[in-house]
């Protein structure tokens, strides 16, 4: 079966972003960019399915500016077979991305789409569920274990009270949680090889998708800072302070 894996280019998780002085956006002109960490987990899972002989082909897809090619090359170095970039300078919101991916799914006919549960920049946690809805496919979000057998998918999901295991029919969308696997690093030979793997570019226009944003950003601001705290010398002082705050008896 064909597996599609979605990869987003985001500000690296170690970078503390700053809001521009006029509140119009964040200043990421010189920030280090990386593949969204949850997408690394998605790529790893797809590649393992290929190595297990379950996936026949792994196709990495990214939507955004031309630089997303770098993220796709990383996915290729990690083991994806080919890549598709949906290139646009328009700021994409999850609904638009889901519509773009629906168009790609119509063309590629994958049996499984793997993506991250959440992009660490917009923290939306929407795209996979939206794609599943538009395709009328089942979904298994926040996956910490995935088994494919006999045309069904058995997925263990991280939920608020613990874990649950569900069985869903294929084709389906799975979104990854942190404990699904530990992604590998790209080796130098594989990075070299990835440069020769096919990377096709398309556009929202070519796919016939209107990507006009539905949500308008009015402002971005940094949250209020907490008042500076104090260091206490020992346990006795800590207990006295906490009693004074009224948070312990």
């Amino acid at each position, binding site marked *: 079966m064909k597996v599609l894996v979605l990869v987003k280019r985001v500000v690296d998780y170690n970078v503390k972003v700053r809001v521009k002085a006029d509140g119009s956006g964040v200043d990421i002109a010189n920030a280090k960019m990386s593949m969204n960490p949850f997408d690394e987990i998605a790529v790893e899972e797809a590649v393992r399915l290929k190595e297990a002989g379950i996936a026949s082909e792994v196709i990495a897809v990214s939507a955004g500016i031309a630089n997303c090619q770098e993220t796709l090359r990383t996915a290729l170095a990690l083991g994806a077979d080919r890549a598709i970039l949906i290139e646009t300078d328009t700021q994409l919101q999850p609904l638009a991305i889901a519509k773009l991916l629906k168009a790609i799914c119509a063309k590629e006919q994958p049996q499984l789409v793997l993506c991250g549960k959440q992009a660490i920049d917009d923290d939306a946690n929407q795209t996979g569920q939206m794609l599943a809805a538009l395709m009328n496919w089942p979904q298994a979000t926040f996956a910490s274990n995935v088994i494919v057998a006999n045309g069904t998918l058995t997925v263990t999901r991280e939920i608020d009270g613990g874990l649950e295991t*569900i069985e869903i029919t294929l084709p389906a969308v799975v979104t990854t949680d942190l404990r699904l696997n530990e992604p590998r690093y790209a080796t130098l030979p594989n990075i070299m090889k990835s440069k020769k793997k096919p990377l096709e570019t398309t556009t929202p226009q070519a796919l016939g998708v209107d990507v006009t944003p539905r949500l308008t950003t009015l402002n971005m601001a940094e949250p209020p800072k907490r008042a500076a705290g*104090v*260091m206490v010398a020992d*346990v006795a002082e*800590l207990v006295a302070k906490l009693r004074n*705050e009224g948070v312990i008896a």
Partner: protein
Amino acid sequence: MTCLVIAEHDNSSLKSATLNTVTAAAQIGGEIHLLVAGSACAAVAKSAAKITGVTKILLADAAHYAEQSPENMAALIVAHAVAYSHILAPATAAGKNIMPRVAALLDTAQISEIVAVHSPDTFVRPIYAGNVLLTVQSLDAVKVITVRATAFEATAESGQATIEHLTATADVGQSKLVSRELTQSARPELAIAKVVVSGGRGLGNSENFHRLLEPLADKLGAALGASRAAVDAGYVPNDFQVGQTGKIVAPQLYIAVGISGAIQHLAGMKDSRVIVAINKDPDSAIFQVADYGLVGDLFEIVPALTAAL
């Protein structure tokens, strides 16, 4: 303008995050209806009818709503959406699973995890692990929203809503529950506890985590939480994780033990009222958000603190 709030429950009792979500709906304005979908869940509808501000309970009771699968829930919600200007659910694992599906079927953008309501179409939500607060305006006819419970008070329960029975939508199938392994605990629920004791990699292993933190949590009537590192290393189950990609908590007192204070962790706890940090490294980032910091070896400090309470 009428808001529909999706109730979260386990077929026998209502989850408290629903009450915070109703408060967000009340701030939007207009009438508030509440959807209770489940199986043999009439008791939930009855208790939900008491939520202040809710005028009508929509009760959809059928076997295929028992697990509230996103496929069946989205079909049901979409079938009733035309009557509503806003559809809201708590930003819990369940709400996050269902609502984007609803939004996509309605061709609407979802506004995730709002922390403030400015007007019926303008909301504030954190992005970049809480380092940025984004104010967004929605241009869609129906607004689909998830609500961060810690940012809104729980509404009172002195109302008297009517209960209307809905005809069930067809079973979508596609998904089947195999099993659930829920963490059993006599402690308060992490997301709503007044006091949280959280442990990180500094605890070293699962045995230490429990041996040191349980007695402290017992004394304080606290819930236990953890950093991602502690969960990944298997000290505690996944549902203990506090942070950007775990649970968001805002207790009266948060005690961070052996946690360095990565931004992803801070995202989940920095709105707590009083934060205490215990860490041997005076330069660790956790001290920047702590009201009270104590530098030293947690293996000495935690037992001493437990004894002093």
